[in-house]
């Protein structure tokens, strides 16, 4: 696990993703809340945060977050996503070999929060980390879902003079948060 995590972290950071790991869901939530505060998230156009549904929000998590954060909504719509500063969603798998996140994104909310806002926070259970992509895509197969998304670092382009520029059509920051006490995926 730790070797896989170290590999994942190195590979993901090499493509400009930010990688964090916390022992508990509560720690992870507090980290995200801190980030929202730091980003000045509030109830104003262009300054909101959107959290798409996932197993992390089951139980008391959602309530805790709703109480603590200003400007954070769980109602993901096209309009809200287009206006949000931060999008948050839960990933199903992580792949160490390439620093990739894998998610069943058939529900459009999963895609809206990870494509439109300039910052995407992706949470994933540490137990969902696997060595390579074939292993993961045997678990999450097109027979089960209409849209599988693989995400490896933030949006990038090198189309002008081959100069690498982060954040063209998708997020300019991808913040990956591993959660050790989260056993199940979405």
């Amino acid at each position: 696990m730790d070797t896989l995590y170290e590999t994942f972290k190195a590979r993901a950071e090499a493509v400009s993703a930010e990688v964090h790991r916390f022992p508990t869901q509560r720690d992870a939530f507090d980290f995200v809340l801190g980030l929202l505060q730091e980003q000045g998230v509030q109830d104003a156009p262009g300054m909101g945060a959107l959290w798409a549904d996932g197993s992390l929000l089951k139980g008391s998590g959602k309530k805790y977050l709703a109480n603590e954060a200003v400007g954070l909504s769980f109602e993901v719509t096209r309009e809200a996503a287009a206006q949000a500063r931060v999008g948050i969603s839960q990933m199903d798998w992580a792949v160490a070999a390439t620093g990739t996140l894998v998610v069943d994104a058939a529900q459009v909310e999963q895609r809206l929060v990870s494509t439109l806002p300039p910052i995407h926070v992706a949470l994933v259970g540490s137990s969902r980390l696997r060595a390579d992509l074939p292993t993961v895509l045997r678990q999450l197969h097109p027979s089960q879902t209409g849209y599988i998304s693989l995400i490896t670092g933030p949006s990038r382009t090198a189309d002008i003079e081959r100069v690498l520029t982060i954040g063209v059509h998708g997020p300019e920051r991808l913040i990956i948060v591993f959660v050790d006490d989260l056993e199940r995926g979405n």
Partner: protein
Amino acid sequence: MKTAFRESVNVALNNANLTGALGRFSEAYRIGRAKAYEGIDFEAVREQIKAIKGSAAGHLDELAETFKRNAEARGAVVFRSQDPAEVRQYILDLAKANGVQRIVKSKTMASEEIHLNAHLEAGGMEVEETDLGEWIIQLAGQTPSHMVMPAIHMTKEEVTDVFNSEVEPGQVPEITKLVRFARGKLRAKFLGAEMGISGANIAVAETGSLVIITNEGNARLVTTLPKIHVAIVGIEKLVACFEEIHPILTALPRSATGQLLTSYVSIITGQVPNTDGTPKQLHIILMDNKRSAMAKDPKFKQALQCIRCASCLNVCPVFRLVGGHVFGKTYTGGIGTILTAWFDELKKSEDIQALCIMCGNCKEVCPGKIDIPELILELRRRLAVEQGQGIVQKAVFAVVNNRRVFHAMLRAASVTQKPFAKDGFIRHLPMFLSDLTEFRSLPAIAPVPFRDLFKQIAQPKGKEKAAFYSGCLIDFSYPEMGQAVVEVLNKAGIEVVFPDRQTCCGAPARYSGAYEVAAQNAQDNIEALLAEDVKYVVSACPTCTVALQHEFTATFESLGMKDRLGDAQKLAAKAIDFSTLVKRLVDEGRLTFKEGQDLGKFTYHDSCHLKRTLKASAAPRELLEKAGYQISEMAECDMCCGMGGSYSLKLPELSAPILARKLGNIKAAQAPLAAMDCPGCVMQIRGGFDKDGAQVKVEHTARLLADRLE
């Protein structure tokens, strides 16, 4: 070659932005690609891709039907079409039927192939490309100059001008700001569009899935925000089962951009919900446009193994000089030449196929394991059959093919060249020939050819015999190289014979598409070289060795001359290049180097055929180091020198800058000596330094080894 095309070559060569950007990229690409493949067995991966795509190419119709069934079971509509016009009309009709006015597109080469945008715009649609590079060239009214980096030919200043004049004034040439500006402008287009058009990198028959790869994230938006998604997929993108995507996902990003994986990979299977909860209309167009015909052609079927990574462009010494606006149409570079000939028509490839110098770089890096140079040669052959050789070329080959006339002419030339030759070089030629000596001097024709000198070398009578195949350059310009080869073999106790009836190896004819001429050359040489019972047929010219080992059989096979194959294979088994043989003799203890030599530094130039076909890059280095030289490697040591046989005569304007880069790399290695195993490369590089004036000695390995052996 048409004059207009020739002019476009010269315009490109004089475009410093273009050649600068492409040149820098090709240097960085080599490094990035190598790093991305660390820990990956590239040969194994490309064998898998070849097997997967090769098998798919053999079952296109069946796979398309399976795909259609499975995708439709998941709610997609699949439209199969042979005909680009039908595809264009299908999309326009669909748009009109759904009241569509605004369309956003993520990158699809298939839509470029059928000129879709123009058709939709003529039908009243507003069509926006969203890949940044594609958007820039769409605004500029241009076509992509590179399959992966469509706007690589433009500077940030030019992009700024395009944005200012076509979108909104006030932009400044700072890349981050330009990208941010594009994000803002295109975001509105994504949100406003009623239809999204994408391509697909892979289509999986078993599951009816599309696999779409991007870095910018635009394909995710194109397939998510508009209520209709149309995917245009060339049927060569089909694979049978889902597991087969993995080798392609391993190779494509690594070969295309030196990435382990692109930022985004989307695997779309059937209908998914729209943002308002309604099911998305998904239309998948499986487009044939001559791909099935290609699959039925035994030679060209392998071209369907292409995964569109563009690595064949990135390693091409010619592409990096002229770019895709010259070298190709919609599809560019090596593979683009082949696809143009098929998707467009054979005649359209006439000019661009001539740009290939046959160095073989592309074949070595192709993740689909396509023999691109071989296919370009086949195009050349078919063009020659269809249109006939030019009159001048015909005359030349008529001479080359007649050994007596050819040799007599070369002898005569050694006399008639006298007004031009000095110190073994021809530095200027009059009139239309002057291009040939503008950038490098040519070697003078030797007063006595090797075939006459050989008669004066007494041969040891040993148990083992080798036939020496000199090739034209050694025979008539560099007989001293031949003498060195014979000296080395004699020192190992080998008796050398020189079959007098040997003639041109046929490479010039073959590389011009004149296969019948090449076949006659092959036949003459086979008869001459098999006449005596020898263990080896040795050549010190890699192009000749490749002809003996590989191309005689290939030429016969192409022409269906099966009865000649037996003898050709017999000769192939005996043929060996000088350095490989000498290395073997040294390893066997039959040759030993003189002790205690310190001969200083050398740099080594890998000749194309020696490195990539004969795979002999270690042997000459090891031999020269054992002889007492110390290697100082140059950058791009295995990049073509620009000679390419008759290429430097046909296209001196391209040969010259390729040579200039080679000379620069040699000088930067800071060795007083450049060694190589090919007399053609010696001719080009030595001639280049004669003009350049730099004090670098250019020599064939055989000459450097001869007197260092006991």
